[in-house]
């Protein structure tokens, strides 16, 4: 047995065989072939095997995800049968006596380049399909054993360098019991996904990939951040009993599901959930969420090849609002840019994407995109308690411009005879220090604030949270951050408004006592953190926490704050 440590990214324990998710090396060399017929036969054999695979994937996708998701594999199948592809490859093998993989690669590359050079962004994206299909055939020609995450069909623990958004989108929760990666932190995309899928995960292990082979038995301890490779029977038994204890604790928390969140001395706060898609709403309800504090709408725009229409968006927003049954739903308008790219928008690469053209900056420029989203939201507003919030607001004029566009669209809809709610609260994300410092002025015009701590911390500390060499500066408990949070909360309260927090910090057990003490009104977190947080808050006195927070604000370092919080035996 060997044990390595990483960052506990998603709670729970999983025991299963390892599945190495590695993108293989497709280096192709041109070689002269003597037996041409055999080479052509090899090509045909690889094509047949690829087709058989695709047929299986297509049928499974059809059964599990429906017709729309299966269509893509139907077109992949057609490419494998396409005479415009197969004939030139076969001709090349015969005429030039070259190896099949080389011939295929040359011809496929021509098609890939053709697509890449097309005017329509949609057709440019087809280059990815061509690459995907080509790789599938090359796997057979080169003897590469590669299974994409979508094809996993037994219980496994996925081991990878990192998981891209497209990898995670393909993970089947039924089979993927846990995952562990070389890089990443608690707030990296893969970690956030793991928590929303409720899959135990350990990230940032640095070298798990080199230590585990496919088929090794692996334990992922997402509670402590440990990964055990080929554990003994006794260890397996120990972890299975830990897993059971954890499940028991979960069951206890579930009892708090339908209870309000009240501190020991009777102060009520609201615990809400962060969601990415309408499918996440079930998890919010199961975990006793009192609302949705952050609906990240960018997932509607990702994993597709063009902008989502007003109708698609309306349906998604309406579904969330209806399923939340009148509980508040805070929808964040499109926050794209930074680490979240949309290929079809064809945005130029930037030197500093996190300081660049993203979120509200992009939306105010691309009003066609923004207005469509606002219309969809306004139309959905009659189906529940909708609250709209704008991301990355740095100056008041941005909020005003966004609000004016919203009001314009609202007036247009009313003119068209479409019903729109008149009780939509309008707020902003506070994630840029300028906005936190000027919160008293913002508070006069907005209905609420939601503090986005992930960005607020990295913009305040000038440190990229994904850069391991400076990640020590990602300090949620730093008194500088706490003071900013206090400024925002106090500014809102002075105007009779409320403040929420939708960053990772809101669900952090060390931060919760401080945030309660600072007077935070709404805590929005991963659905699975809600019940533990409710249990924790029920044992804390808000008055005592107010004193604790006041002390913390007078400390000099994050470490001193953490020690102070731990001293209350929380």
């Amino acid at each position: 047995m060997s044990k390595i440590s990483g960052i506990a990214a998603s709670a729970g324990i999983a025991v299963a065989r390892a599945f190495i998710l590695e993108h293989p090396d497709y280096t192709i060399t041109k070689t002269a072939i003597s037996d041409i017929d055999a080479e052509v036969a090899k090509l045909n054999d690889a094509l047949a095997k690829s087709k058989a695979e695709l047929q299986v994937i297509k049928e499974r996708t059809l059964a599990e995800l429906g017709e729309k998701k299966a269509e893509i594999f139907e077109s992949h199948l057609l490419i494998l049968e396409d005479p415009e592809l197969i004939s030139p490859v076969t001709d090349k093998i015969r005429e030039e006596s070259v190896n099949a993989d080389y011939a295929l690669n040359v011809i496929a590359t021509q098609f890939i380049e053709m697509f890449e050079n097309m005017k329509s962004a949609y057709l440019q994206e087809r280059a990815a399909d061509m690459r995907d299909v080509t790789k599938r055939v090359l796997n057979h020609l080169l003897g590469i054993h590669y299974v994409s995450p979508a094809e996993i069909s037994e219980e496994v623990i996925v081991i990878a360098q990192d998981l891209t958004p497209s990898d995670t989108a393909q993970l089947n929760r039924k089979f993927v019991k846990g995952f562990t990666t070389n890089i990443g932190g608690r707030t990296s995309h893969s970690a956030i996904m793991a928590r929303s899928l409720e899959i135990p995960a350990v990230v940032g292990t640095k070298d798990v990939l080199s230590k585990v082979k496919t088929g090794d038995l692996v334990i992922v301890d997402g509670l402590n951040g440990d990964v055990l490779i080929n554990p003994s029977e006794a260890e397996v038994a120990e972890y299975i009993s830990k897993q059971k204890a954890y499940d028991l604790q979960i069951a206890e928390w579930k009892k708090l599901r339908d209870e309000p969140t009240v501190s020991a001395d009777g102060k009520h706060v609201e615990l809400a959930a962060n969601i990415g898609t309408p499918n996440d709403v079930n998890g919010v309800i199961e975990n006793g969420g009192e609302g949705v504090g952050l609906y990240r709408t960018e997932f509607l725009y990702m994993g597709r090849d063009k902008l989502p229409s007003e109708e698609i968006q309306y349906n998604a927003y309406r579904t969330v609002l209806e399923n939340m049954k009148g509980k508040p739903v805070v929808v964040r308008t499109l926050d794209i840019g930074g680490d979240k790219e949309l290929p079809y928008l064809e945005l130029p690469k930037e030197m500093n994407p996190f300081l660049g053209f993203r979120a509200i900056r992009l939306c105010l420029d691309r009003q066609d995109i923004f207005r469509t989203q606002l219309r969809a939201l306004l139309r959905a507003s009659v189906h529940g308690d909708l609250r709209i919030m704008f991301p990355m607001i740095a100056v008041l004029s941005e909020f005003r411009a966004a609000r004016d566009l919203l009001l314009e669209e609202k007036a247009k809809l009313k003119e068209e005879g479409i019903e729109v709610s008149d009780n939509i609260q309008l707020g902003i994300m506070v994630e840029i220090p300028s906005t936190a410092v000027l919160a008293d002025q913002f508070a006069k015009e907005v209905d609420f604030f939601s503090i986005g701590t992930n960005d607020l911390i990295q913009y305040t500390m000038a440190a990229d949270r994904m850069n391991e060499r400076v990640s020590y500066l990602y300090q949620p408990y730093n008194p500088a951050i706490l003071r900013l949070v206090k400024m925002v909360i106090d500014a809102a309260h002075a105007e009779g408004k409320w403040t929420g927090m939708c960053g990772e910090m809101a669900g952090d057990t060390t931060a919760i006592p401080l945030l309660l003490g600072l007077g935070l009104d709404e805590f929005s977190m991963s659905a699975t953190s809600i019940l533990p947080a409710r249990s924790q808050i029920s044992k804390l006195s808000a008055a005592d926490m107010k004193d604790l927070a006041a002390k913390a604000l007078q400390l000099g370092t994050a470490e001193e704050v953490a020690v102070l919080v731990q001293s209350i035996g929380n």
Partner: protein
Amino acid sequence: MQTTFRIIDEDGIHARPATALVNTATKFKDTEAYAEAKGKKVTLKSILGVLSLGLEAGDTLSLITEGTEEAEAMKALQEIMIKEGLGELHE
């Protein structure tokens, strides 16, 4: 036999309708089917061929069928164009 369409779908001819067109054309074994647009003519039995035309909204596209079942083939292809909301007849 030839019929001309004007593409109305805002995405032009994308993967799903292209797949449907190719599948339909392929059903008619003894009939050749072509798509012609922007001075290029490709076989309708090739998805890469159809996509390579790079058809966008507003473009004009001619479908051509030649062979024993050319009328049936044309009718089936026309149905796909209409059903997929791809084009309006342009004659």
